C-alpha cells in the first residue's frame, strides 16, 4: 500500500493552505491604491495579484492572514478584518 509519497511538481497548487489562516484576512478597499506593488512584493505566500490602481486582491486559497500587505500599504488602502466580516 502506498500513502502520500511521490509528489508531482506543482502539488502546492492543489494543496490549498488557506484554511491555516489566522482569524484575520486582508480587505482591499480599492479607493486610494496607487499601484505601487508593495503588497504584492511583501506577501510571503505570493498570493496577491493585480495590475493598475485599485485592482489588487489576494487569493483566499493560500493567504495566511499575516497582515504584511496591510502594514506596508503606504495609502492604508488594505485593512485586516475578521474572517467572517463582509
Amino acid at each position, binding site marked *: 500500500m*502506498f500513502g502520500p*509519497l511521490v509528489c508531482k511538481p506543482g502539488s502546492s497548487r492543489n494543496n490549498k493552505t488557506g484554511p491555516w489562516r489566522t482569524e484575520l484576512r486582508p480587505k482591499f478597499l480599492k479607493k486610494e491604491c496607487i499601484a505601487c506593488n508593495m503588497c504584492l512584493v511583501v506577501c510571503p505566500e505570493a498570493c496577491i495579484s493585480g495590475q493598475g490602481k485599485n485592482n489588487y486582491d489576494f487569493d483566499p486559497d493560500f493567504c495566511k492572514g499575516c497582515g504584511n500587505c496591510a502594514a506596508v500599504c503606504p495609502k492604508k488602502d488594505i485593512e485586516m478584518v475578521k474572517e467572517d466580516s463582509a
Partner: protein
Amino acid sequence: MKELLEGSLAVAEIVRLCKPGVISAYPITPQTHIVEELAQIVANGKLNAQFVNVESEHSAASTVLGSVACGVRSYTATSSQGLFLMAEVLYNIAGMRLPVIMTTAARAISAPINIWNDHQDVVSLRDSGWIQFHAEDIQEAVDLHLIAYRLGEDKSIMLPVMVCIDGFILTHGLETVNMPSQEEVDKFLPSYKAPYKLDVTNPLTLGPLVDPEFYTEARFALNETHKEALALIPKITVEFSKVFGRNYNGLIEGYQMKDAERVIVAMGSVCGTVKDVVDELRKKGKKVGLLKITSLRPFPASYIYEALKNIPKVAVIDRALSLGSFAPLAAEIKAVFFGRPKMPKTISSFVVGLGGRDITRESIKEIFRLLTGKEKQGEFIDLKPELLKESYE
C-alpha cells in the same frame, strides 16, 4: 556450485550476482571483508557498478538512498556504530519507499566498546520500517540476499531490506556454500524497474514536507505494506525453492517441534547450536525443539502463534536488551499470546551471548534445564557475578 567460502566473501559474491549498479559503504568491523571484496570485484571489472567511497556511514546510506531514488539497484553494508550513524537516513529510506538492500554484520554497541557479535544494533533499528531478516548460517545469508532483492523491489512492497548476519560467527566463519549460477539468479531476480524515480525529464519530489493532513496516511501505508510483505514472503520462497532447490519459509522455521514440550525461540547463528543440542537431547528421549525467527520485521505473529500455542514451556533467547524493560524478542513473543485462546504454560526469557560471549552447548542445555522450573524473566545465562563487585563510593 559448492565452494568453501568465508561468509563475507559469499555475501560479496551473491551481491555481485544480483548486479547492483551502485555500491556505497564505509568499512567497519566485522563488515569490512564484504565491502573490501566488493571493491575488488568492481575494480577487477567483474561487476559493472559504481563503488562510491564515502567518509561515513551516514554518507553511505545517503548515497544509496539517492541511487535507488534514481532507479538503480544498490547495495550497502554496515555494523553496530555504523548502523546507528546511518539511523536517520534509514528511516528516510523506508519512508521514501526505496528498496535499498543492506547487510548488517550484527555487533554489540558501545560503551564499553566491543566489536563482537550480539543483536543490539539491528534489534534497536527494528522500528525503522526496514524489513529485517536474520540468517542462521552462511548459506541462508546468501539466499536471503536474493529473497531480499526480490521482495524489496516488488512493485507492491517497495521497502528496504536488512539482512542481518551475526558478526564474526557468520562474516568470518567458513562454510561450504552452494553458490547459484548467474543464469539461476537472473531467472529468479529480474532487473530492477523502478515504478517511480528521479528523472529530469519527468520531475517529482520524494520525501517532501507533509502536514498533519497527510503524515498519518503515509505511516499507515508503510505499516500496511509490512502486512502485505508478510503474505508475499512465503510466495517468494516457494519460487525460490523452484529455482534453487532450497526450502525456506522465510518467516519462521520449526525444528523438532511436533511433539516438543520445551522449545527455545531464537534468531541468527545460535539456532545452529540449539539444533545440535536438540539432536543430542532428543537422543536421550527429551522432547525439545527450536523455533527460529527469520523475519523479525514484518513480525510473523500468527505463524508464531500456530507454532507455539500447544507447546507447554517456551524459552526466548535474546541477544539484545531493551534497557529498563523486558528483553525485546521475549516481549514480542509474549504479546503474540495475549487475548488468544491458547498459549504456553510458561514463556521464559533469557539474555545470552552479549558482546561476543560464546553461547555454548552447555549454555543452551542450561536454558532447557531451567525450563523445567518456574517461569524466568530476563534471566542472564553465563553471567559472572565476580565481575560485579566494583565500587566507586
